[in-house]
């Protein structure tokens, strides 16, 4: 293992700010970021990354690899929840298993964005269509998760599929990322240059701020997880690692570049803590949100951004 990659990642300002947020809470500091600002940071990051992806797609040509990657992304996002559900069902029951399955089938945009920042620091290239892959992987797991909960539960309450589909396919983050991607794709080069300070220069600062907020949010949930620490840790790291490594294998079969392979692995190995919990709260309200949100946010998210990114990049650089 190349420890310089781990060190390089650990000492990057976004990760240090994440650690600062966690440390501040654990040391009982009164540091707090207003929730409306946290929302603004996340909207900015999605918009900036969408625009960057759109600019990049405009410069590239539509090829077989892009179409295969997008198709594989949807397939992975729709099939991962089945595996997670059958691993967890006997232990946790249908509702919790389905909510966790949906959480781990979907993706974490911030993990993806942190990986982009890592690649940019190393000067490794990636393609803009990976951002489209990210947007496409958010929703399928929500639908599969609700299907699994519905199929295996004894409840007679019916699911409002129309509302759920609207929530899954048109949730704010999907709309913003796909919309920004399209706007970036349509924008002429003059606008691309004009928007550069917004999409590039501000990007790392906002990422640091957002990760500081996420560090605080992660630390707040450590205590909640104490009751179910064993399964949360085992599954939160074990399953993420398994799907991340499977992602590397798929990326190899798809003949992706090293940068794209890292992003694909992290899309496969990350878990949602924004879009999925919001949908599950409505569609599977019986599931315990105190389990699936902290598992994703407090265990899988830091594992991926601190260790997963350099570990996967190291493996990719050996295999490729």
């Amino acid at each position, binding site marked *: 293992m190349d420890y310089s990659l781990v060190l390089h990642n650990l000492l990057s300002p976004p990760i240090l700010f994440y650690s600062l947020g966690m440390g501040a809470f654990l040391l009982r500091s009164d540091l707090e970021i207003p929730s409306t600002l946290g*929302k603004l940071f996340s909207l900015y990051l999605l918009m900036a990354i969408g625009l960057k992806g759109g600019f990049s797609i405009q410069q590239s040509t539509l090829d077989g690899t892009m179409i295969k990657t997008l198709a594989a992304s949807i397939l992975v996002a729709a099939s991962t929840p089945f595996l997670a559900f059958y691993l967890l069902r006997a232990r946790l029951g249908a509702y919790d298993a389905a909510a966790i399955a949906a959480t781990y089938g979907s993706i974490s945009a911030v993990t993806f964005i942190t990986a982009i920042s890592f690649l940019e620091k190393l000067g490794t290239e990636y393609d803009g269509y990976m951002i489209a892959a990210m947007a496409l992987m958010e929703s399928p797991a929500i639908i599969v998760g609700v299907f699994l909960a519905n199929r295996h539960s004894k409840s007679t309450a019916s699911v409002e599929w129309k509302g759920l589909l609207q929530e899954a396919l048109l949730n704010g983050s999907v709309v913003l990322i796909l919309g920004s991607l399209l706007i970036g794709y349509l924008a002429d080069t003059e606008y691309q240059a004009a928007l550069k300070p917004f999409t590039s220069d501000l990007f790392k600062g906002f990422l640091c701020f957002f990760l500081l907020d996420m560090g605080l949010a992660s630390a707040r949930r450590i205590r909640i997880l104490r009751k179910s620490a064993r399964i949360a840790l085992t599954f939160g790291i074990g399953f993420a690692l398994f799907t991340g490594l499977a992602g590397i294998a798929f990326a190899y079969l798809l003949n992706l570049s090293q940068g794209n392979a890292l992003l694909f692995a992290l899309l496969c190995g990350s878990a949602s803590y*924004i879009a999925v919990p919001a949908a599950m*709260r*409505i569609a599977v309200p019986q599931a*315990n*949100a*105190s389990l699936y949100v902290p598992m994703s946010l407090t265990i899988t998210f830091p594992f991926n951004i601190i260790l997963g990114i350099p570990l996967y990049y190291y493996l990719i650089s050996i295999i490729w």
Partner: protein
Amino acid sequence: MTTVDKIELIIPSAYAQHRLISKLDEWGINGYSIIKEAIGKGRSGIQQGDLPADVGRSWYIIIASETSRTKLIVEEFRPIISRYGGICLVTSVNMLIKDANSEDRY
């Protein structure tokens, strides 16, 4: 001074935002006040309200209802709370001032 019932509802924001408001209109509730972003602790554990999505937040809704209509309104909320969580409180209160031009009849 008129005696009315104050109905206080705390409903998960993810449900309230997309569904409850249209239902209030359907049920003929023409006046209400909402305080968004309520946090606390309930069936789903501690609601932190610190994520950039409608997770762990609730809406606090206040309705002033004529006593004769309260039971009907509360019965509409019962299945929602039983499925999505939340709380409904009813208190008899004195309404000191009411907008004279208001046509609201709860």
